[in-house]
């Protein structure tokens, strides 16, 4: 994925424009004493040269732990992104404070930096980027291993969706009053679509419930009490499904329902779901939280990281990704392929030429057979036109009077039924079927059920109904003498037309008022996402092995330190730096220059020490303090604060501070403090705990 990475100039600018004190601390650590007056640009150049020296770069990289490498990998993957992205990506692996510490350490060690040009987002330091990325194994970050066996294809298929719809659409008395299927209907449905029952969870609450929920959320199943099945809504699912029926359908599983229940908004966009699915390679198995992390990465890259939980849930729930003992694997093949059913075996010969025969067969007994090669459109049409009877590799459905009436209900006339079935079957239909369609349609039309407004008008009003331009625009149909019908549920339109036609407005509507259908809203469309680029990250192998000599180097540095003739506190400081891996070689031990940072910790009865720590923190420009104190009559409290001032009160000194991360002020008597510890900012302002 091509995200804009900071250039080396950005890195230089960041150092030049950054906090001078922090910068000087860093330079003194790596390059030794800084003579004044100094040229900041020149120091940056020297630092850059120091980092790029092969032995130094190797030392920095050699000190990186697995966790640190993972953070480097994550920062590189995320590119310039929101500050919370990294924390989210490491959820379930590192606590935020641990991650903070790792990031601060990596910044001090020049591996990462905060880029002002990218709103201070973390980035890999350009002078070290090539060397660092050469040892990063992104697959390791996502805990991938080569997949051993290809799992079963996703159980949710276009074939299944069409079959279940067809079963519901052509069913009779199959819903109970509470909106659930009767036991008999459930059994019949499962016989037709056995994959609705999970082999390891035979209860119907799993897959079956998910599919039914999707049908409800898409408005295909309407109403809770005495529900009906809406073919238009099913058609709408197809119309929206420009990225694949299965994804459009699956995405409907999670939706937000408006307060009045009239509209449902999908949480996850179907296109996003499909893109994430496509970004998952089938050749690997994701262990532990690897899949979640990968989806997080992919979704974050198009601004949808907050939907990770939903996306992972949909992928696993509908079998696009399978959970196994080894981890999560994706089946090979295209899950969006409606031609594939759970029972469809592979073509015997992969190189067999496509069949010339049609994929839908209609025989003289009015049985319609749908072959596995049939596409979405064919299945959709057959689902509406014929009632499913048996389903295996081939779906067998029957066209009869009832199924035809259902199709007429869905607005498909005899002509369309005949024409489309003939097209799909590639030849003329049996005459008996053509005749039957026409005959059934005549019978169907002999009784009509209208939905809309009926207007009864007499005398001059009837004349106005028939001749007024306003009423004509409403497409008023005359059903009988003085009886008119308008196919709309918008009463306001009718009222307006009646007024324009010069008719007196009826004060009330006689009869029941029509209901309204559920509106379905798609999820917000995400930014563009290129699945292939995402996958490429996993396919890339580390350029070289990471040097594995960090411990040996540290041990050598400690030995060298013992031979140095420096002040005790300097030796302690250097020892700490070695442990923090910001000392790369023995020469650095000799040249390192560091002013005293003052007292860092005091406690209990060391009243002066506690005040000194607070003063130094205030003087440093706001270093945070970790304070444990006991308010009057209370228990010991631990709080992280940014000190503002020390105020003299009659009872003694009081620290005035702000609780870190908030605007909330706090006043703490120094006498009540049992322990005070200064948290030093990293070289670039990243918080971390001083260690002594």
């Amino acid at each position: 994925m091509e995200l804009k990475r900071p250039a080396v100039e950005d890195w230089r600018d960041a150092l030049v424009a950054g906090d001078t004190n922090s910068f000087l601390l860093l330079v003194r650590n790596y390059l030794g004493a800084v003579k004044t007056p100094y040229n900041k640009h020149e120091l940056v150049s020297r630092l850059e040269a120091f980092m790029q020296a092969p032995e130094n770069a190797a030392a920095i990289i050699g000190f990186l732990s697995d966790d640190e490498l993972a953070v480097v990998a994550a920062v590189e993957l995320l590119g310039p992104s929101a500050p919370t992205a990294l924390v989210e990506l490491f959820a379930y692996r590192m606590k935020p404070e641990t991650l903070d510490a790792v990031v601060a350490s990596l910044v001090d060690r020049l591996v990462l930096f905060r880029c002002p040009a990218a709103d201070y987002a973390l980035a890999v330091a350009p002078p070290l980027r090539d060397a660092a990325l050469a040892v990063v194994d992104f697959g390791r970050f996502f805990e991938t291993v080569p997949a051993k066996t290809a799992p079963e294809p996703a159980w949710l298929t276009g074939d299944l969706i069409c079959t279940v719809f067809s079963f519901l659409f052509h069913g009779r008395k199959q819903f109970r009053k509470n909106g659930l299927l009767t036991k008999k209907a459930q059994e019949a449905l499962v016989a037709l679509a056995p994959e609705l029952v999970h082999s390891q969870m035979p209860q119907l609450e799993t897959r079956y419930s998910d599919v039914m929920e999707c049908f409800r959320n898409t408005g295909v199943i309407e109403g809770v009490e005495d529900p009906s099945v809406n073919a238009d809504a099913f058609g709408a699912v197809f119309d929206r499904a420009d990225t694949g029926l299965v994804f459009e359908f699956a995405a409907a599983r999670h939706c937000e329902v408006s307060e009045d229940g009239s509209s449902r908004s999908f949480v996850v966009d179907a296109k996003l779901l499909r893109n994430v699915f496509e970004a998952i390679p089938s050749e690997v198995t994701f262990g532990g939280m690897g899949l979640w992390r990968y989806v997080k990465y992919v979704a974050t890259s198009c601004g949808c990281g907050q939907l990770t939980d939903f996306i992972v849930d949909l992928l696993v729930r509908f079998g696009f990704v399978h959970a196994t003992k080894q981890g999560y694997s994706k089946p090979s093949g295209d899950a969006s392929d409606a031609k594939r059913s759970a029972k469809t075996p592979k073509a015997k010969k992969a190189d067999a030429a496509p069949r010339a025969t049609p994929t839908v067969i209609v025989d003289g007994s009015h049985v319609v057979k749908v072959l596995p090669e049939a596409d979405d459109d064919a299945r959709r049409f057959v689902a509406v036109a014929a009632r499913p009877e048996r389903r295996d590799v081939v779906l067998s459905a029957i066209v009869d009077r009832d199924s035809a009436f259902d199709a007429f209900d869905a607005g498909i006339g005899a002509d369309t039924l005949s024409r489309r079935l003939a097209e799909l079957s590639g030849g003329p239909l049996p005459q008996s079927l053509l005749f039957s369609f026409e005959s059934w349609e005549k019978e169907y039309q002999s009784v009509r059920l209208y939905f809309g407004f009926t207007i009864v008008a007499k005398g001059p009003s009837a004349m106005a109904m028939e001749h007024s331009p306003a009423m004509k625009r409403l497409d008023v149909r005359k059903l009988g003498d003085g009886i008119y019908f308008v196919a709309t549920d918008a009463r306001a339109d009718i009222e307006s037309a009646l007024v324009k036609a010069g008719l007196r407005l009826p004060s009330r509507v006689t009869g029941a008022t029509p209901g309204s259908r559920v509106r379905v809203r798609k999820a917000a469309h995400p930014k563009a996402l290129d699945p292939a680029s995402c996958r490429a990250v996993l396919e890339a192998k580390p350029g070289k092995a990471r040097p594995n000599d960090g411990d040996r180097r540290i041990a050598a540095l400690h030995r060298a330190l013992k031979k140095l003739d420096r002040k005790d506190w300097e030796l302690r400081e250097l020892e700490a730096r070695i442990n923090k891996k910001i000392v790369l070689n023995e020469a650095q031990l000799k040249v390192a220059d560091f002013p005293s940072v003052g007292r860092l910790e005091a406690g209990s009865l060391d009243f002066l020490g506690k005040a000194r720590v607070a003063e130094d923190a205030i003087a440093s420009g706001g270093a945070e303090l970790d304070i444990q104190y006991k308010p009057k009559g209370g228990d010991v409290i631990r709080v992280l604060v940014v000190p503002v001032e020390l105020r003299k009160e009659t009872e003694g000194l009081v620290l005035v501070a702000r609780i870190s991360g908030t605007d909330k002020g706090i006043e703490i008597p120094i006498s009540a403090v049992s322990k005070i510890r200064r948290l030093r900012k990293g070289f670039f302002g990243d918080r971390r705990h001083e260690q002594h």
Partner: protein
Amino acid sequence: MDMGGPLIVQSDMTILLDAHDPLFEEARVALSPFAVLEKSPEHMHTYRLTPLSLWNAASAGLGADAIENALARFSRYEVPSGVIHAARDFIARFGTLVLHDDPDADSTSELFLECADPAVAAEIAASRRLVKYLVPRPGGFGVLLADRGTVKQELIRLGRPVRDEARLSPGDPFTVSLRDTAASGSPFTLRPYQDDAVAAFMGGNTPGNGYGVIVLPCGSGKTVVGMAVMSAVGRKTLIVTTNIAAAHQWMDELHDKTAVAHDDIGEYSGERKIVKPITVATYQILTWRQEKGEEFPHFDLFRKQKWGLVIFDEVHLLPAPVFRVVAEIQAVRRLGLTATLVREDGHEEDVFSLVGPKRCDVPWKELERRGFIATAVCREVRIPLPQRDQIRYAAADQRARIRIAAENSRKVEAVLELVENHPEDRILVIGQYLDQLGALAQALKAPLITGKIPNPERERIYSDFKSGKERIIVVSKVANFAVDLPDASMAIQTSGTFGSRQEEAQRLGRILRPKKRNSYFYSLVSLYTIEEEFSSNRRRFLTEQGYRYAIEAWDEAEWN
């Protein structure tokens, strides 16, 4: 071009065969030994692997490997592993149990059911339904000869087929020679498919053969196949038919096409009880008894004669009580003949297990293509009810509606018009309701045959029809089966038994004797009535055999 194969093997054990595939014929031949043909419509035929079909294949020496290879060779997709697994399992079961004569038995009426697998033996011994028939013995069970069929039937229900190697009773010898020239003077020879059917039944006279069902279309000469089997067996034969007319036709055919003397052919019916080396009986007389609950006295016909062969004509109609006696005569060769093995009571499996497995099944359209049965043009004519009947119909309950629709008075006019439009055809008008049939006979000035007409009178009318003296006859359901009217070229069905598929097929069968012209089958159906639904169901057997119906409606305007 490699099309990938004509078969689609499904996990529910059905196999679809693409009739338009270049390998169709080859695949059909390969499938037939181990799969049952269920449907053969114009595009995609349906076969099914059943335990019986697989055991039958196993008994014929076909192994699981051969079946797997055949499926793999012709299959368009990978064969589901479950199908192969199930087929192998069923095949492996065959041979676990072997029924043979018991040389150690005190009496010749005992057989020995050998069971080498102790687990299977334990399973069988634990069966409540079998325990009274089996005597546990080392290595198996003793079985009484009379229980042979019942035991085999129960074992099949348990999923344990028996390889029946016990000898069949030879029966008393009796030679039946087929003539080269029929007594009527026409040349007579077996057609290839009839030869195949006989060979399939006889199976080289090896153990496991000599019993079974042959399914051939109406008009294709099942009686001839029966006579050819009689000739091959060469033993005294009992033939059981549906009714006296059918019995007489059998006797006529035997006189015409075999050299059996008239005196050697007996009729065992309500009218006569003459037992001869070749005896033709009816199901009615066999199932007659004085009172409900009493024994069937005429079952002794099976028991007291040393028959070498029993033929069950129209075996799909085998009455339930006869199953009992068939179970007793498992030592006798048994041949079932039918065109439509569709039973509304669902007892097809009992036919297979007691009479024997399907040995031969030839699709109707196949024989039509080869000219052995007539090409039939099927038309359904929808006729509106007269207005007065429409009102009656709307107000009637379901039962009355069926009657009103069936007896639509306009059907009489429609029949007259159809008859007028087919001056060259010899016509059967077939219906269900006697009042309607009476009206039709009167309007057509044609003789009427119903169950009330005495048999001699019926046979006279049939004879007049055959001789050309009568061009049209009106018949009730008594002519549904086994009435051979070779020159009938047109049938008009005015009403029927609800949605009976079998009746529809049998009625069409009355006009399928090959002739130099097409046959026409008209079915009259009242428009916008329950009859349309019945008709839709009635057509199914034939449409599944590849017949296409054209439907036309005679509009209201045409009647005004």
